[in-house]
């Protein structure tokens, strides 16, 4: 996802000289190296200093540039939080805050590097939009949106990405539209909603449901804010069983919002939500192992759904 973002952004930067990148010592500049080499005067590294990364972006946006702040999610959003809130959101500036490794992607680095509350925190700020694509192709679509004219009529966007090696999930999906949920697969009985690379579990769960003769829809809620409430309500109405999976804290994310919409729309389906635990879990294995420690693995979810 990192490389897809960087390549898509670079292509856009060839055509739009207002696009700039402000990074805070992302190590190595890796994926962004092409941009850095191609447009050295539009690439700024503030070093290990995230508040000024956001402050610079605000001032640059106020002067007509289109800056992207880019580093590990916890350092683009948490460390400079008040700057994101005041400088970007209060001013309603078209700055894109790119968070690499949303959720607990950096599994071996410990809790200091986990952005497991990022979507809730970003969503809580007025004017902020939150985008969380699920695979490289959707990252490409989201990035193409993030550099287009329509996007720059909006204020700040938090673009939550994974890291590298995510599988493609959206091959046969309908087109990406900002603010609209997207069916990756259509079925009749069960509907699994989520955002981000964790959606790969949806496909594994779908196979288990299908083995029991049920047909399954899978939806990417890539735009977590503004959430496509109508689309969610329709999914609640059209399926007997709706499941939300998110790699995010159990508070303030998609699951609680879907539950709220289910109540408001008097939905009659069964509704299950799965999220990270409200806990810092000191497991230093692979991303999948840390997710399993949070109960976010196919086997655990299947067990809790009575699928085993």
């Amino acid at each position, binding site marked *: 996802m990192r490389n897809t973002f960087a390549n898509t952004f670079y292509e856009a930067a060839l055509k739009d000289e207002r696009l700039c990148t402000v990074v805070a010592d992302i190590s190595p500049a890796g994926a962004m190296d092409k941009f850095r080499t191609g447009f050295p005067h539009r690439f700024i590294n503030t070093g290990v200093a995230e508040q000024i990364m956001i402050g*610079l972006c605000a*001032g640059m946006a106020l002067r007509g540039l289109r800056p992207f702040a880019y580093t590990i999610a916890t350092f683009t959003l948490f460390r400079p939080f008040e700057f994101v809130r005041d400088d970007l959101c209060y001013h309603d500036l078209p700055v894109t805050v790119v968070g690499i490794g949303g959720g607990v992607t950096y599994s071996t680095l410990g809790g200091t590097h986990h952005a497991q509350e990022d979507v809730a925190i970003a969503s809580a700020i007025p004017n902020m939009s939150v985008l969380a694509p699920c695979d490289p192709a959707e990252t490409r679509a989201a990035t193409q949106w993030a550099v287009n004219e329509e996007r720059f009529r909006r204020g700040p966007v938090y673009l939550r990405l994974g890291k590298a090696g995510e599988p493609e999930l959206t091959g046969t999906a309908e087109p990406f539209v900002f603010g609209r949920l997207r069916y990756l697969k259509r079925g009749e009985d069960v509907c699994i909603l989520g955002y981000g690379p964790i959606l790969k579990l949806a496909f594994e769960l779908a196979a288990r449901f299908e083995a029991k003769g049920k047909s399954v829809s899978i939806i990417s809620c890539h735009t977590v804010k503004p959430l496509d409430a109508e689309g969610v309500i329709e999914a609640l109405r059209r399926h007997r069983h709706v499941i939300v999976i998110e790699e995010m804290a159990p508070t303030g994310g998609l699951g609680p919002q879907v539950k709220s919409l289910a109540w408001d729309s008097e939905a009659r389906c069964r509704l299950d939500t799965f999220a990270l635990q409200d806990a810092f879990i000191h497991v230093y294995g692979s991303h999948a192992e840390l997710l399993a420690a949070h109960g976010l693995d196919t086997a655990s979810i299947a067990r809790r759904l009575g699928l085993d």
Partner: protein
Amino acid sequence: MSAPLRRNSFDAAAARRRCLTYRRRILDISQQVTALHVAPAFSCLEMVDVIYHGLVRSDALPDGKPAFRDGFVMSKGHGCLAQYVILEEKGILSRDDLARYCRADGRLGAHPDYGVPGIEASTGSLGHGLGIAAGMACAEKIKGSDRNTFVVLSDGELQEGSSWEGFMMAANLRLANLVAFIDLNDFSGLERMSEGHPAFHPVADKLRAFHWEAVEVNGHDAEAIFAAVTGRRGDRPLAVVGRTVKGKGVSYMENVPIWHYRSPNKEEYAQALAELKEIGA
């Protein structure tokens, strides 16, 4: 490469007359509300006056109002009354705007708000303005424009780590088109900084160590403030460190922390008006 600054001569006598008028106007506004930041506005008033009347270049719009070509950020947002009364005089804010200061039917609050005419950034939380101003200056440099950016900081907000991130990056980016004015009135909300935080001083040396050009002046001497900017070397960002007095011009306000936020009552107001006079070098 430093962007050219306006180098016409600066009429210090006119600045003294203006600042007396501004102080009176701010005191008038103080009678409309129970609390406002009089003393912090009085300490930075001469610096803000020099910025608007001596440094910021403007083009005349068809309606006679100025369109500023150079940028200005009031990073010490609590000093914004100094900005409001100047914007009023320039016709950018109306008398009615100031009459509705901190009222539900108005648009001016106790901190400047982006979107209000003449206000380029919302501040209030300290330690934000320098970064925003540096971003503006950086954008102008990227675009190849000759626009300068001016920013006024309080000394208290230099305690914010973010201010030092800003100093560091402005110097790294060689933003010679950025000028920071530091209102060194020696008071934070609670105490005299030189007493509570003795290691805070000397400020100018710290800035020089961060590769800024730094000039110390009497922050109530408009001529010296103007000269500090026009006489700069111009190959790096400039800090004008202005030694000032919080509440300058009103005896009972000077260096008395409660006046950070209190409005004078009727008797105090009358006394203040009687005391005010032109402040010289």
